[in-house]
């Protein structure tokens, strides 16, 4: 009965009034925004510290249940609660490190491994369902997506007993290498769970995972979690490849060539979009339902993809044929190669923008999407923090083209973000890196920040050191 009610609700959500989209997906590399752009009227922004002391914080999600609580994900396998007044509760909300008597359930040996993300069911307030995505130690680093149920008698803590009693494992995705997991999971405005899944790692996508439709790596996945408990999940019937692999009679004649392309034998129906390298963070605009994906690039270019709410999925974002609007390998700026699939809305370079050694000082090395801002004079502006340069960028459609606007540069190593219950963008930073990694509980602690207009910083608040040039 609950399921039926939810289905009706979700159907209604899906059929909601279409939203007008002025934004266009670039069809020409020259239309892809790069650093140096500007958003007219953009406010000065500041990062206000909400709480501190987190061990390798790599994810953050607001509870959105009216409590004002914020969940900060610690890579080691814990989720900490920050209360509405900024207090960090001493006991973790969720702890994956000690329910298994043989040790932690989370693989953290490499800095890209760990617990990455927590998502609250759209009806969390009624059903208490929370979902997590992490690298499993018992399953040799495989991606586990699991659901737990909060006991209403213990709203701030899922005890070990409750965790074991309520766990439902939805997915176990083997991982070939120890990097490029992706990480974020989030419910879309359609009530479906979206999963950012990296290409499985190494470099250069040796398995061609991005372009292959028969693997879950290198994708944005979309699943329906509202299934009976004995069924891990369902494939939404409107997924782009939901029926592409179904058994059928063969017809050779009377079919158009376009018709033949619909046969994607062996394709995985969970796929929503492909050609991604490492979509660690992606966010829906809560107002329009539009989607932004921050796809972490390889050696030279970071890309931010835009997908309107009207999308039916199936976009190919080009990896490993392209990095941003450039080639892979990216030898030089004037190198020619086909653009495969869909161009990003924006892109920014690394220190070394091409294999020819071109140096740039206006980008970073790893795009961490933080959330879509609709405040302080900003409209549908995707905030992106960079892990290497500490820059805070905004991606927005201005007039007739995309702009990549640098708000400021901080000293922070951004890892993740999300939008809080009031619509403000949150960010977390860590001191975790490939080198000098002391492990998920021994690295210097990171903090939780809220991005606000600089003229709205509360009196006495601690603000991240920043410069605007």
């Amino acid at each position, binding site marked *: 009965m609950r399921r039926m009610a939810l289905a009706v609700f979700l159907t209604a959500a899906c059929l909601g009034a279409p939203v007008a989209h002025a934004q266009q997906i670039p069809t020409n590399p020259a239309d892809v925004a790069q650093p140096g752009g500007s958003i007219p009227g953009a406010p000065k922004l500041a990062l206000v510290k909400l709480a501190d002391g987190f061990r390798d914080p790599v994810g953050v999600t607001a509870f959105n249940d009216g409590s004002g609580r914020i969940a900060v994900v610690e890579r080691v396998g814990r989720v900490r609660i920050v209360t509405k007044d900024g207090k960090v509760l001493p006991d973790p909300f969720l702890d994956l490190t000690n329910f298994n008597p043989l040790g932690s359930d989370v693989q953290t040996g490499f800095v890209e491994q760990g617990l990455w993300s927590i998502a609250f069911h759209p009806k969390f307030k009624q059903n208490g369902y929370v979902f997590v995505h992490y690298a499993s130690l018992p399953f040799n680093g495989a991606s586990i997506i699991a659901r737990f149920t909060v006991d209403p008698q213990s709203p701030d803590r899922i005890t070990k007993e409750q965790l074991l009693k309520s766990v439902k494992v939805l997915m176990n995705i083997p991982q070939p290498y120890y990097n490029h997991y992706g990480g974020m999971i989030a419910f879309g405005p359609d009530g479906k769970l979206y999963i950012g899944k990296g290409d499985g790692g190494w470099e250069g996508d040796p398995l061609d995972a991005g372009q292959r439709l028969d693997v879950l790596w290198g994708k944005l996945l979309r699943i329906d979690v509202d299934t009976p408990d004995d069924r891990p999940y369902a494939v939404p019937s409107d997924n782009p490849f939901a029926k592409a692999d179904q058994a059928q009679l063969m017809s050779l004649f009377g079919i158009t060539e376009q018709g033949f392309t619909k046969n994607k034998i062996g394709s995985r129906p969970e796929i929503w979009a492909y050609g991604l390298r490492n979509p660690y963070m992606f966010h829906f605009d809560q107002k329009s339902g539009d989607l932004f994906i921050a796809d972490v690039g390889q050696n030279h270019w970071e890309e931010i993809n835009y997908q309107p709410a009207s999308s039916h999925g199936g976009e190919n974002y080009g990896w490993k044929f392209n990095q941003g609007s450039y080639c892979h390998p990216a030898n030089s700026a004037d190198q020619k190669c086909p653009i495969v699939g869909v161009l990003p809305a924006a892109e920014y370079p690394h220190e070394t923008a091409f294999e020819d050694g071109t*140096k740039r000082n206006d980008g970073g090395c790893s795009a961490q999407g933080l959330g879509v801002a609709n405040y302080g004079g900003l409209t549908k502006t995707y905030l992106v923090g960079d892990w*290497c340069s*500490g820059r805070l960028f905004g991606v927005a459609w201005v007039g007739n083209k995309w702009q990549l606007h640098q708000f400021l*540069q901080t000293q922070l190593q951004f890892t993740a973000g999300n939008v809080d219950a009031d619509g403000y963008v949150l960010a977390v930073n860590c001191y975790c890196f490939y080198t000098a990694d002391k492990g998920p509980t021994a690295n210097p602690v990171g903090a939780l920040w809220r991005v606000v207009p600089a003229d709205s910083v509360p009196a006495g608040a601690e603000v991240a050191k920043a410069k605007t040039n």
Partner: protein
Amino acid sequence: MRPGLVRRAALVVAALVLPIGICVKAEDLLSDFKDPFDGSPLKFSPQPGETETPAVKKFKTTGVNDYRGNADAIAAGKALYQENCAACHGEDGKGRIGPTLVGNELRYEQAKSDPGMFSIVYAGASGAMQSFARRGMHQDDMLKIIAYVRTLDK
């Protein structure tokens, strides 16, 4: 040519022929003990269990890195560099994820002097170039790393 010698036009000629301790006034070097992010002066505190070596003490007061040209210190600096720095700046110091540490086009002008580079390693700059003091590295090791980095600048 050592890059630390070329940053002040008035001293360029002298820099071509004279060692750093002679041609650059100590107060000039000491002015590079600053935060690369905003130029504010830096204070350097030893960590628990860290003792200030004679080389560090001298460096703080004169800006002169005694490990330059010291084969043992450079060898130790090389090992530390490969463990902590090479992933971003490259084995050759010419930059990969992070900026180049050699040549004249440095991200931070202050990195051309040893106190300036020391300040960046100690206090961090932006994003992934975090404070190595916060990560637990001792100042004596920072001096050794810098001594090695200068050997890459050929």
